[in-house]
């Protein structure tokens, strides 16, 4: 890993990448750089272009224009070389159901042209690392969803990748499995692995990613660390109110919040000090109860940026 640190290239470097399928523009002039060792998140609503962006990184989808370099290599010119150094966990598990985890891992090792000896030693490591040993010789079709997901991740680690790509790694898993997968990602990063992931869970993005980009309609609508995005797009704290939508405009004007959002039955006001806002509200408009004073999270940022809810700007 010492040589890796001296490498000046970002692990993934997209420059103004555009891709259309027929008349549909899926990725629109997207630029992003994933520094070595980072955990980088791609967020966005369904159809925002996240999976297409990932597919372009490992060279299965070719961009219409723009450049994609991974490990400093142009993906289009040498996809084999690029893919030998990265691992991908797809949204859907692609396991061989009649075979055991050990046999499934061997199959993947052979795609990477590992020797049988390497396959055995890495299988041993991964059985421990992803806690698969208890069912190492049970056919995959008899394993639980969480177990199959861990096996899928183990598969993508068989070649000891420098870059691990995770497409919605924890969708559909129970909270205990999710938390245990998050700590595996932390461990991999401690060993120097760069991680690029997509997720629908803002909590997951906040927990794992030190940098992220929010995509909407194939465009990057915001990019930065979770804290930067919260500061830049909204404000550090949030005050949630139960008010009817007709009153939104008047309340926002009276209290001068930095930004506000309507989320279902609630109005959310954002300010650097939401407690102070709550006090003024109690004095001036006692009829409105503050439902919550809390820290702003990525979910708020996501809703504000992707316009998933009706918004009243202040």
């Amino acid at each position, binding site marked *: 890993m010492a040589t890796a640190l001296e490498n000046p290239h970002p692990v993934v470097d997209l420059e103004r990448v555009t891709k259309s*399928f027929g008349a549909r523009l899926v990725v629109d002039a997207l630029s992003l750089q994933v520094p070595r060792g980072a955990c980088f998140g791609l967020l966005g609503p369904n159809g925002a272009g996240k999976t297409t962006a990932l*597919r372009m990184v*490992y060279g*299965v*989808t*070719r961009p219409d224009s723009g450049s994609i370099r991974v490990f400093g290599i142009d993906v289009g010119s040498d*996809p*084999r*070389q690029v*893919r*030998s150094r990265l*691992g*991908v966990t*797809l949204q*859907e598990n*692609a396991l*061989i159901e*009649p*075979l055991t985890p050990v*046999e499934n891992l*061997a*199959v*993947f090792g*052979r*795609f*990477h*042209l590992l020797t049988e000896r390497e396959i055995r030693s890495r299988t041993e490591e991964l059985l421990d690392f992803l806690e698969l040993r208890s069912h190492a010789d049970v056919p995959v079709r008899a394993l639980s969803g969480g177990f199959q997901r861990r096996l899928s991740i183990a*598969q*993508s680690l068989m*070649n000891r990748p420098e870059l691990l*790509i995770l497409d919605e790694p924890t969708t559909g898993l129970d909270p205990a499995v999710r938390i245990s997968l998050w700590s595996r990602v932390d461990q991999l990063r401690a060993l120097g692995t760069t991680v690029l992931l997509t997720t629908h869970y803002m909590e997951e993005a906040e927990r794992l990613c030190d940098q992220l980009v929010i995509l909407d309609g194939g465009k990057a609508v915001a990019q930065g660390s979770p804290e930067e995005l919260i500061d830049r797009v909204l404000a550090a704290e949030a005050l949630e109110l139960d008010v009817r939508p007709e009153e939104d405009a008047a309340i926002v004007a009276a209290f001068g919040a930095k930004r506000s959002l309507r989320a279902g039955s609630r109005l959310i006001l954002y300010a650097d000090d939401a407690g102070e806002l709550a006090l003024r509200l109690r004095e001036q408009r006692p009829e409105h109860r503050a439902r919550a004073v809390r820290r702003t999270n990525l979910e708020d940022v996501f809703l504000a940026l992707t316009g998933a809810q009706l918004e009243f700007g202040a």
Partner: protein
Amino acid sequence: MRVSLPHVLSVWQRNFAMYRRTWKLNLLPNFFEPVLYLLAIGIGVGSYISEMGGTSYVAFLAPGLVTVAAMNGASFEVTYNTFVRLNFEKTYESMLTTPVQAEDLLFGEVLWAVTRSSIYGGAFFIVLIAMGLAPFPYALLAIPVIPLTGLLFASIGIAFSLRIQTIDLFSFYFTMFLTPLFLFSDIFFPLEERLSGAWLWVAELLPLLHPVRLSRAAFHGEFSAALWWDFAYIALLSLVLLYVAAGTVRRRLTT
């Protein structure tokens, strides 16, 4: 084309690993089918037929049924199995996250289908030897016809499977394509004695006819220059279809 033989073999190994686990379920029905035809038609019906093509009826039938065993072995692999791996199990998609490329995957699948056709054709050939129906030594020359038949039907089948959008079309493939080939490719009766004029030329288009001719020539030890045409047909049609399939697999899997 950018084919890498080690990656092709890694795809072959994937299928082999799976087959080792499931062969008992797969091998037996496929294996018994031509054996049943040999018994029922060859020996059963054949006992009412004094001779055909200069031999007993069961000896007439045997070389053709070897190619049928090979055809079936290859066809099952590249039809339902290929379709499911492409469309449902996302097997190919996951292979393409590794250094395996679309062309490697295609040739790995075809090589595996040829292997499977050789297992079925070979098993049936052993039955023929045991029954004294494979005259030594010329019948041994029919052995290379088995993988050749496998290659031809793997190429036809995979070119079809990669193109279709719904799995239901395989019932047409089997009933409207493979079954007529089975019945009208010189296996049960000599085609040239039942057809005349232009129909003889039309019959030359039938893919199974050519492996059957090669196999029968080997069993009977009767060789002629006309067999080069049968060999050329198999080689050329396989090459053309594999070339077409390579384009399709790239288009389906990479965008």
